[in-house]
C-alpha cells in the first residue's frame, strides 16, 4: 500500500518542523523569563527612585530645607512619575513651590532625554515639563502637538497650556476641528484648565471663522467654559438650524430663559430626538405656561419623548406631584397616564434616568 505521508521528504519536513518548533518554544520561553526578570528589576529601580523623590517632594512642600542633587542615570523615570503624581494632588500655587526642586535636579534635561523614548516615557516627560512651567521648553514641546498619537498630542496641549497659555491656546484651538481623534472629554479638560481667558477668546475667534457644522462642535466647548458667550452662538444656530444633530446639540446646551419660545418651536419636529431634547430643554428654562405646550407630547409615539416630557413637566415652576396628578386625570391616552405614574414614582424614590 502506498502511504504517501511516509515519503522521505515529508518525514524530513515533519522532523524539522518538530525540531524547530520545539526549539522556538523553548527559545521564546527563555525570552519571556529574561524579559520578566528585566522588567522586575526595572520596576524595582523605578519604585525605589519614586519613593525617595516622593519623600523629598513632601519635605519641600512642608517647607523643610532639603539637600538635593542632580538626577542619576536611571532615576529619571521614577522621579518623573513621582513628580507628575505629586502635581496631580496640588493646587497651582502649591505646584509652583516645587519648581526650584525641578531646576536643581535637572528635570528639564532628564525629561528631554525621555522625549525620545517610548510612548509612555514621552507622554510622562511632556507632562512633567508642563508642570515645571519653564518657558524655555515651549519650543521643545510644540512639535508634539502634531504628534500622530492622540495621547501624546493631548499631553503636549496640556503642557503647553501650562507653560504659555495664550500662545498654546492660539495653536491648540484651531486644531480641535482638524483632530478627529482627540476625545472631546480631553479637549474639554484642557480648555477648562485655562484660567486666563485665552481659551474662550480663541474659541470665539474660531467660531467667527467656522462653518455652521464646525460651530456645533466648538460651541459645546465654549458652553463649558463661557456659557454667556456660548448662548449667542446657540441662539444663532437655533434660529437658522442646519440639521437635526446641530439642533439636538443646541437644545442640550441651551440655558437662557429668553430662548424658551425658540425651543418650543422644536416640540413638533418630525424627528423624535429633537422633540425629546426640546421637551427636556423647556423643562430647564420654561415656566408654568409651557406646560400647555408640553402636554400634547405625553401621548407621543416614542417612549423617550413621553418620558422626558413628563420629567420636564414635573420640574416646571409651579408644577408638583399634585399638578401632575391633575394632568394625569386629563389624559385620555393610556401611555400618557402610565408615563406620569412612572415619573412620579421615580421622583418619589429619587430615581431618574
Amino acid at each position, binding site marked *: *500500500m502506498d*502511504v*504517501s*505521508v*511516509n515519503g522521505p521528504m515529508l*518525514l524530513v519536513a*515533519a*522532523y524539522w*518542523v*518538530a*525540531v524547530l*518548533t*520545539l526549539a*522556538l*518554544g523553548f527559545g*521564546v*520561553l527563555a525570552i*519571556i*523569563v529574561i*524579559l*520578566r526578570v528585566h*522588567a*522586575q528589576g526595572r520596576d524595582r529601580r523605578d519604585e525605589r527612585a519614586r519613593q525617595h523623590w516622593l519623600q523629598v517632594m513632601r519635605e519641600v512642600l512642608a517647607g523643610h530645607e532639603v539637600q538635593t542633587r542632580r538626577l542619576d542615570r536611571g532615576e529619571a523615570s521614577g522621579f518623573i512619575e513621582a513628580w*507628575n503624581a505629586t502635581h496631580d494632588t496640588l493646587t497651582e500655587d502649591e505646584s509652583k513651590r516645587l519648581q526650584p526642586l525641578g531646576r536643581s535636579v535637572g528635570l528639564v534635561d532628564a525629561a528631554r532625554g525621555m522625549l525620545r523614548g*517610548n*510612548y*509612555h516615557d*514621552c*507622554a*510622562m516627560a511632556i*507632562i512633567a515639563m508642563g508642570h515645571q512651567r519653564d518657558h524655555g521648553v515651549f519650543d521643545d514641546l510644540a512639535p508634539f502637538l502634531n504628534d500622530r*498619537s492622540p*495621547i501624546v498630542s*493631548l*499631553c503636549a496641549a*496640556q503642557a503647553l497650556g501650562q507653560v504659555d497659555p495664550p500662545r498654546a491656546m492660539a495653536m491648540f484651538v484651531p486644531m480641535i476641528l482638524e483632530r478627529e*481623534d482627540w*476625545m*472631546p*472629554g*480631553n479637549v*474639554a*479638560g*484642557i480648555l477648562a484648565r485655562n484660567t486666563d481667558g485665552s481659551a474662550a477668546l480663541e474659541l470665539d475667534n474660531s467660531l467667527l471663522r467656522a462653518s455652521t457644522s464646525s460651530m456645533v462642535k466648538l460651541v459645546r466647548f465654549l458652553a463649558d467654559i463661557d456659557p454667556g458667550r456660548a448662548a449667542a452662538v446657540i441662539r444663532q444656530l437655533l434660529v437658522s438650524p442646519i440639521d437635526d444633530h446641530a439642533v439636538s446639540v443646541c437644545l442640550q446646551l441651551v440655558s437662557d430663559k429668553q430662548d424658551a419660545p425658540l425651543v418650543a418651536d422644536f416640540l413638533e419636529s418630525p424627528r423624535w430626538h429633537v422633540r425629546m431634547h426640546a421637551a427636556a430643554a423647556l423643562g430647564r428654562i420654561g415656566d408654568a405656561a409651557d406646560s400647555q405646550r408640553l402636554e400634547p407630547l405625553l401621548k407621543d409615539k416614542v*417612549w423617550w419623548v*413621553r*418620558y422626558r416630557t413628563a420629567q420636564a413637566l414635573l420640574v416646571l415652576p409651579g408644577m408638583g406631584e399634585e399638578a401632575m396628578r391633575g394632568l394625569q386625570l386629563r389624559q385620555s391616552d393610556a*401611555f400618557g397616564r*402610565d*408615563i406620569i*405614574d*412612572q415619573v412620579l*414614582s*421615580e421622583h*418619589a*424614590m*429619587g*430615581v*431618574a*434616568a
Partner: protein
Amino acid sequence: MNAAAHAVVAGLLPAAWVQVLASMQWVFMIYFVAINLGYLILNYISAIQIVRYMREYRASYLPPGLREYQPPVSIVLPAHNEEKTVVASVRSLLRTRYPEFEIVVVNDGSTDGTREALIEAFGLVKVPEAYRARLQTKSVEAVYASARCPRVRMVDKVQGGKSDAINAGVNCVRYPLFCVVDADCILQPDSISRVVRPFLEDRRVVASGGVLRVLNGCKVETGMLTKVGLPNRWLPSYQVVEYLRAFLFGRMGWSPMNALLIISGAFGVFYKERVIAIGGYRDDTVGEDMDLVIRLHRQMREEKRDSRIVFVPDPVCWTEVPTDLRSLRHQRVRWQRGLAESLWSNLGLMFNRRGGVAGWVAFPFMLVFEFFGPIIEVVGYFAMIVLALTGLVPLYSFLIFLAAAIGLGILLSVNAMVLEELSFGLYARPVQQLRMFLVAVLENFGYRQLNSCWRFYGTLLWLFGLRKRPRWGRIKRDGSWHQGRAAGGAVLPEEAAERSSHA
C-alpha cells in the same frame, strides 16, 4: 509494530477501511498545516495589534476630563437561581469606577430566593414602569427600583432562558449602550471604561468585547479581584493557557480586520439600537452570543453600514472555569453546539458579495477549523493509531508527526504567553511562566485530545438534533478564589500582578 496488535486491528477493521484511512492521510496533513498556519498568521496580526495598543495604553496617563464624556451604560445581569451570588455580583458592579451607569438585573423565573434576596439587599419596590416590549419575551411580571440604590432595577419575569432574560433587560435599559455580564463573573473597577473606550474613539463601533481570564487561583475580596494567581489543579491550569490562546490571538487577530465573529456572552458592550434592529438575542440557540455578533455583521453589511465590531486585549472579566471533567465536558459540548447552530443559521454571510473579511475569511475559517476541526482531528487520531498499529505507518514516522504536532501546539501556546507578557504581564513571577510552559507541554498529552472528542460529540448532538431547548448552562464551581472577609480594596490588573509577584 508487534504482530499481535496488528492482528487485533486487522480483525476489528476490514482492510478496505484501513485503506480509506491511509488514503485520507493527505486530508489530515493539509488540515494540520492549514490550521497551524492560520493560527500563526492570527498570532502575528495580534502581536502587532497588541504592541500598538499597549503603546497607547501604557501612555494612558491622561489629563482628567474624560469621565463626563463617557456615554452612560446600562449593565444587564441575567440571573436564574443565583440566590447565593446575585447580591454580591450587583454590589461588585456598583463599585465600578464608571461615571454613569445603571444595573438591570433580570430575574428569569428563579425558583429559589433570588428575587427576595435582591429586594431585601437593595430595598427594591415595585414601580409602575411604562415597560416597552420592543423585543418579544416571556411575560414581565414587574419592574422594581430602589430609592436606596437608584442605579439598581430588577425585571421580574417568567422563565424563558438566558437569551430571553437579556432581551427583557434590553427592553428595559435606558441608555444607548448596554453591557451584558454573567452573574458569576468578576469585573475590575475599570472594566467598563476599557471596553467602552472603542465607542469613544470610533463612532462606527457597534459592539466591543474584552479578554476573559481564569479566576481559579486568584483572590477576590468584596467582589473585586485582589490578586492574580495560577490555579493549583491541572484542569483549570490547562484552561488558563487555552483562554490566553483563544482570546489573545483567536479573537484579537480578527478584530483589526473587522472580522470578529464572537464576543463572549459573559461580558460585552453593545449599541442597543443595533441589537434591537436585528431582533435581539435568539432564544432557540445555546450559542446566543456568537449568533448575535454574526447577525450584527450580516445586518450591517446588508445595510451597507460602515460599522465595526472590536475587541480590546484588556483583561476585563474573570470567570471561574470548571475543575472537574464532567462540568468541563458539559461546557465544551455546549459551546460546540452553540458554534454549530450559529454558523449554520448564518451561512448566508459566507462568501456573501458584501461579506468582507468576516464573510470571506473568518466565517470559512471558523467553519473549517472550529466546526469541522474536531471531526477531522478525532478521525485523524484514530487513523494514525490504527495505521501505526497495522504497521502502515512505521513507529518512528508516527513519533515524528506526533512531535511536530506537539511542537506546533507548544509554539502557539508560548506565543500566547508572549502576547500576555507584551501586554499586561499578569502572571508576573518567572516561576509562573515556567509553570505555564509546563502546562503548555502537558496539555498536548490527553487534554487537547479529550477536548476534541467532546467537541466531536457536541457536533454529533447538533447534527442528529439530540438537543434540548436551550436553558441556563450550569457548571460546578469550587469558589476557592472567594475571600469572605471584607478587608482589602479592589486593584487594577497591573496592581494585582504586582501583588502576585510578591506572594
